[in-house]
């Protein structure tokens, strides 16, 4: 084997083992890397008790109630739900039915008191007319082919 192929083989081998090592480390840190827990995970008791954490999901349509500066809404992952209370200004993209990430603590009553609420938007970009058409199609019960 020529020296240069040997060196190339060593480099590729080292890179492969480094990749595997990184993969294992990231896998072990999985729960620490995740930005938020879902309401289902909270229900399973995976959220830290008495400590600050982030919960993420969709704002349940129709659940938003405002009382002065305090907003109350329900975060859902379509199987479990968690009520959230937040005093402050909500981001512009905060919408019912859209993604949200709230940071705060779980109170004994089961309500999540948020100190920060961030909007998580999706990766779809379309003009308003197209969005309108999509919504109309949904209402008509037409399934869209992606």
């Amino acid at each position, binding site marked *: 084997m020529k020296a*240069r*192929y040997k*060196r*190339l083989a060593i*480099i*590729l081998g*080292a*890179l492969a083992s*480094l*990749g595997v090592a*990184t993969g294992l480390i*990231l896998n072990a840190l*999985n729960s620490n*890397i*995740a*930005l*938020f827990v*879902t309401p289902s995970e909270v229900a399973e008791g995976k959220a830290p008790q008495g400590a600050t954490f982030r919960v*993420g999901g969709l704002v349940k349509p129709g659940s938003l109630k405002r009382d002065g500066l305090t907003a109350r809404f329900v975060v859902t992952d379509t199987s479990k739900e968690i009520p959230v209370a937040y005093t402050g200004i*909500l*981001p*512009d*993209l*905060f919408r019912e039915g*859209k993604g949200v*990430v709230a940071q705060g603590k779980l109170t004994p009553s089961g309500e999540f008191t948020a100190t*920060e*609420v*961030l*909007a*998580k*938007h*999706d*990766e*779809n*970009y*379309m*003009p*308003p*007319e*197209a*969005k*309108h058409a999509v919504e109309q199609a949904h209402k008509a019960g037409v399934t869209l082919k*992606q």
Partner: protein
Amino acid sequence: MSSRLINWFRYSSPATFYPLAGKLIPWFAALAVLFGVAGLWVGFFVAPTDAQQGEGYRIIFLHVPASWMSMFIYMVMAFWSAVGLSLNTRLSGIMATALAPTGAIFTALSLITGSLWGKPMWGTWWIWDARLTSELLLFFLYLGYIALRAAIDDPRRADRACAVLALVGVVNIPVIYFSVQWWNTLHQGSSISLTRSPSMAHTMLLGMLLVALAAWMYSIAVALTRARAIILERERHTDWVVRLPELNA
């Protein structure tokens, strides 16, 4: 050795590469301007308003091409580093060195535009989610590469040390790219992927791809310019540099 390989190696010689790069640079620069103007025009005047984000989404025409380039340039650097380590070609280290500042600039641009986009849409300038953190790590990898290069006087030793750093850092690239799939993040998923049709309007996509092409052309032009300067510096004692007509004018 086959004749095909000999031809390849011909262009890996700085003496052959230097004039070739000089001829190519104006073309790449012109294409960069052309695609850049076309892309920004489509992005700002032709592409429709976004249904959710209004006009604010238009920063995507800078943010996404900059982020793509930041990752792609690093992969090219890692490629040249592997070539340099295994084949011991002089030009490989020069190419990797020439690319590093451009990669760092695109990474910074990606982080800055992302931050400016995050504040109005998400409600925060910065969050330590997997996507943002790994992109910041990429920025430090570029800075580390540039610093390591500057710290070693002998260019051939610097080439080898930097090549190892570049290759170690390349494991971060798939982490950045797949972070939004592997973990839950505040950053949204990819709108463009190889496995499914893009989830954005056609004119939006066109604008983004044009700016991305412009970023490619710009990167090639400036990297070649920088490579030529490095070649002159490293080979200043050789006959062919001493005899260069532009240095004797």
